[in-house]
């Protein structure tokens, strides 16, 4: 049981990240590498604020806001300065390394002595009864709120335009809207969510470490691809739900690899499990198509 709990904890927290990556990768069709910097950016600002005595709850909106700023920067570099998409992400990711170091002060900020949203909640009588489930419950609450807000947003006029930019940008131009601005908006939202994931992760692990962003994009993309391809045919399920489940499945793959194989083989096993999941979902799709025909 406790194994399932820690996989859910990690999977749900990285689910927020998956929501962010979903916006850029699936909706905007923009491979955004900024996340390798904006994830630790959220963590850095959280660690700095918490050590300064700011309420842990306040760090959530603040880290979202600072992630939005990072996303806007990437967007401006790409749209206004006409730098290629991949490159503008790399530029921001590189710049954020130093910015994160400045914000946090040092490369490693422990938060063992400070209060976090999780420890504050365990003081609350309502949550205290949940014992070991507390982290999972809070992560679930945060990720569900993010998901619902994102779903609601995607149904607004602005949300529809955002989806149109990725699918059919001619349409957007024909509606007399500037697709550049919409792209910037999408990147801002995405990186806001990613920084929020960094904020929660930092409080859960109780440490900020500058290298914690390395490989974030891989986890994010893997979660999005697993989620969307596995539940492609499940029309009752929203893509936003699918990517969160994708994130949990990704963490399950990692946990299986950690549990059962030697440390050297772990990355390979994770890759193989990841491949198997993709093959299965790919086959399901062709089969379903065949049935329709």
């Amino acid at each position: 049981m406790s194994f399932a709990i820690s996989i859910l904890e990690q999977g749900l927290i990285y689910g927020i990240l998956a929501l962010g990556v979903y916006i850029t990768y699936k909706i905007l069709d923009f491979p955004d590498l900024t996340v390798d910097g904006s994830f630790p950016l959220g963590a850095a600002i959280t660690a700095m604020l918490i050590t300064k005595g700011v309420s842990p709850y306040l760090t959530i909106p603040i880290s979202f806001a600072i992630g939005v700023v990072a996303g806007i920067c990437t967007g401006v570099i790409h749209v206004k300065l006409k730098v290629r998409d991949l490159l503008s992400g790399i530029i921001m990711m590189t710049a954020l390394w130093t910015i994160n170091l400045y914000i946090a002060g040092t490369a490693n900020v422990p938060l063992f002595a400070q209060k976090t949203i999780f420890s504050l909640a365990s003081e609350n009588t309502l949550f205290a009864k949940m014992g070991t489930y507390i982290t999972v419950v809070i992560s679930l609450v945060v990720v569900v709120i993010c998901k619902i807000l994102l779903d609601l947003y995607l149904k607004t006029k602005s949300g529809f335009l955002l989806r149109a930019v990725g699918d059919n940008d001619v349409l957007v131009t024909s509606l007399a809207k500037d697709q550049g601005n919409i792209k910037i908006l999408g990147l801002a939202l995405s990186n806001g969510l990613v920084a929020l994931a960094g904020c929660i992760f930092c409080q859960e692990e109780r440490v900020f470490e500058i290298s914690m962003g390395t490989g974030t994009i891989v986890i994010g993309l893997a979660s999005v691809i697993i989620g969307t391809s596995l539940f492609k045919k499940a029309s009752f399920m929203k893509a936003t739900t699918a990517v969160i489940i994708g994130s949990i499945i990704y963490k399950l793959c990692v946990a299986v690899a950690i549990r059962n194989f030697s440390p050297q083989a772990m990355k390979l096993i994770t890759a193989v499990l990841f491949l198997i999941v993709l093959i299965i979902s790919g086959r399901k799709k062709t089969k379903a198509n065949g049935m329709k025909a």
Partner: protein
Amino acid sequence: MKKKLLCGILSVGMVMTLLVGCSSKKDDTGSKEKEYKIGITQFAEHGSLDNCREGFLKGLKEEGIEEGKNLKVEYKNSAADMSLSGQIADDLVNSKVDLICAIATPSAQTAYNAAMKTDIPVVYTAVTDPVAAALAKDDGTSVGNVTGTSDKLPIKEQLEMMHEILPKAKNIGIMYTTSEANSVSAIKEYKKYAKEMDLNIVEAGIAQTSDISLACDGLLTKVDCLTNLTDNTVVSSLPTILDKANKKNIPVFGSEIEQVKIGCLAAEGLEYTDLGIQTGKMAAKILKGEAKASEMKFETITKPGFYGNTEVAKNLGITLPENLTKNAVDMFDKIEASK
């Protein structure tokens, strides 16, 4: 239908391996008495950290706790990945080990965080500054059910040793990774002692392995000799640095035995295997119930030892002073290939 079945079987299989993995191990601890089960979480694959781990098991063995006999070891390595490190720590706590040995600072922090809600003690090693890492209080006492050993460098001794070998050297170059908290605090201390000795520290900060070549070229034009910290990224690329320095006939000093083995001139440093052994003995006390991690201060290796490499000295045209070599812990007469 077949494919759907395959998909179902696979997912069930994955979950089962998880559950079977933990249930079978539970039986082992329950059936025999005095059978210890420990988990080791190591942050990266790295010569010095590997030595720590081997030393740790040796230290336990010297206290009568031997792998294969009355000890089960679960060894995990997070390949320098923070999110993985957290998941590994959770995994070890969930498999209800008797003690977690955490090697290097990030691993120690994730392990302590995961074990905080349980009564599993954490023993760390290769943490340079346990106070800055919030694993110990200012006076060295523990902050919780956690203790261990620090690999703080004997910086003053190192500078004195360098001055003795190269009395004319004034500018000392150090390369370090800006992301490693250990290195940043070591640089600060180097500067403090260098000022007292009227020496000048020239630092070059890098962000990743690919920066090393350029940074090294730049640094070598400005210094009389180089010295190393225990910086993971820099030490991993030591062969590149040695190659560049040798071409310019600039001596490179190390910070521990492995570095001297593979071609640093000398080091006033620590032996990670010894540090591991010391840590293993602390862990043995905790496992046997003789001491509590929460009541133990963290330890450091008190007396550093001198290591020298005579082949390197010959290549550079330097003779190592006799009063250093006669007290050396270990001297090497050839350069070994790096691990």
